[in-house]
């Protein structure tokens, strides 16, 4: 398969860019306990964005894995999860703020640590949102690739240590032209006292056309309807 693009996200690194529909995006953890926080927007109209509640309630799940789709607030599929070696990715534990990062790992500054200072998901996202002509208003619950956060009966949220092994992979397939924003920053609930420093590689390939036998299309009738909405959108645009 032809590799279009490759990048390694260093610990603390961020990235944003446009990715057209019909691409595979494979993420690989180059160490244990990776966490990549991710936001997705429709490239043509960024007021349409990844919607955690609609994604979870349509698929009756509180976590993400192969077969699941990432839905927008307009009932369309921004991306599907077509491969997953872990079985659980999080979308309920958000991104680290500057305050959380300083409190948990100790305050660092660029002045003292130069590019080894400890970055936060909040600031990474905000910078990339502004780069894409958005801002604080557009910040919403994100996906956290490689992290497992489960919920006890009383509602308490628990981060599972050791869930992500070195070499773990998850592959998305874009179903719309998107703005993708990535932040390789620690999970908010990871109890580790040292700032986790795990690089993650990102590779993009051309994906074959989606057909009606596709696992993500058929995962649930809800998914099928969301795909129909997505196809309608592009048909009406003449694309």
């Amino acid at each position, binding site marked *: 398969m032809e590799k279009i693009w490759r990048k390694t996200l260093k610990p603390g690194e961020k990235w944003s860019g446009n990715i057209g529909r019909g691409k595979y995006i494979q993420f690989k953890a180059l160490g244990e306990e990776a966490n990549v926080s991710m936001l997705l927007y429709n490239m043509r109209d960024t007021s349409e964005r990844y919607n955690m509640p609609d994604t979870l309630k349509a698929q009756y799940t509180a976590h993400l894995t192969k077969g699941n789709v990432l839905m927008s607030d307009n009932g369309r599929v921004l991306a599907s999860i077509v491969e997953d070696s872990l079985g659980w990715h999080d979308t309920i534990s958000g991104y680290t703020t500057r305050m959380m990062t300083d409190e948990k790992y100790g305050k660092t500054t660029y002045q003292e640590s130069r590019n080894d200072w400890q970055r936060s998901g909040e600031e990474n996202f905000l910078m990339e949102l502004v780069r894409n002509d958005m801002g604080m208003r557009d910040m919403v619950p994100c996906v956290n690739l490689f992290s497992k956060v489960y919920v006890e009966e009383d509602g308490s*949220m628990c981060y599972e240590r050791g869930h992500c092994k070195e070499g773990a992979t998850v592959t998305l397939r874009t179903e719309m032209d998107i703005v993708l924003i990535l932040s390789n920053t620690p999970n908010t*609930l990871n109890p580790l006292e040292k700032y986790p420093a795990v690089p993650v590689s990102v590779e993009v390939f051309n994906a074959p056309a989606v057909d009606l036998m596709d696992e993500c299309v058929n995962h649930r009738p*809800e998914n099928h309807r969301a795909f*129909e*909405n997505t196809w309608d959108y592009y048909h009406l645009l003449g694309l």
Partner: protein
Amino acid sequence: MYGLIKNKSNLKVEDAIYDETVSAGDGWMHELLPGETLRILDLEGNQAADTTFYDMTNPEDHYGAVTTIVMQKNIYLTTGSVLRTESGKPLLEITADITGRHDTLGGACSSQSNAVRYAREKIDMHNCRDSFMLQIGKDTYGFKKRDLAPNINFFMNVPVTKDGKLKFDDGVSAPGNYVEMRASEHTMVLISNCPQLNNPCNAYNPTPIRLLIWDAK
């Protein structure tokens, strides 16, 4: 704190400075000043009140559902829960709660989510997102669709299991149940009294809510 514990209020209805009933399918938008307390009363039981907030000193900072649950490390809201903005700033605290547990993962229903979840033919049914959009469309504050982030569903029961499943259960509320929250900041409140007819979030029977406000003591 999270065992469906009832915590009654000492506030008296006759002392309220505001008292209105909002029908199912209607929206409501109102400012709270620091120290003011809002009560949402579930008049007939099992109603869902979809609610979100904005920090009026920085209206770009909307209610943060995930920020709120991560900072209390618990997905359910009840007495003592601090309701925060996306950036983590405390806006309100729940000070009384008869139901004991409220959802903030389930979001609001929309035309599109109804069409995806139930049937494409249901796209014309009235929904919370339309009520939110009508309210912000009529106001003069300049809120747009992009300001509509995941909200709270007061009185709604959305259990999450340890193995990662999410379901919509019958409500845990009852006629006369209420939840109260005190604002610590100048806060805009945006409510849609949910018109959903397709799931048990309001027992397939959307009913009115009553909203009361007390000034700072």
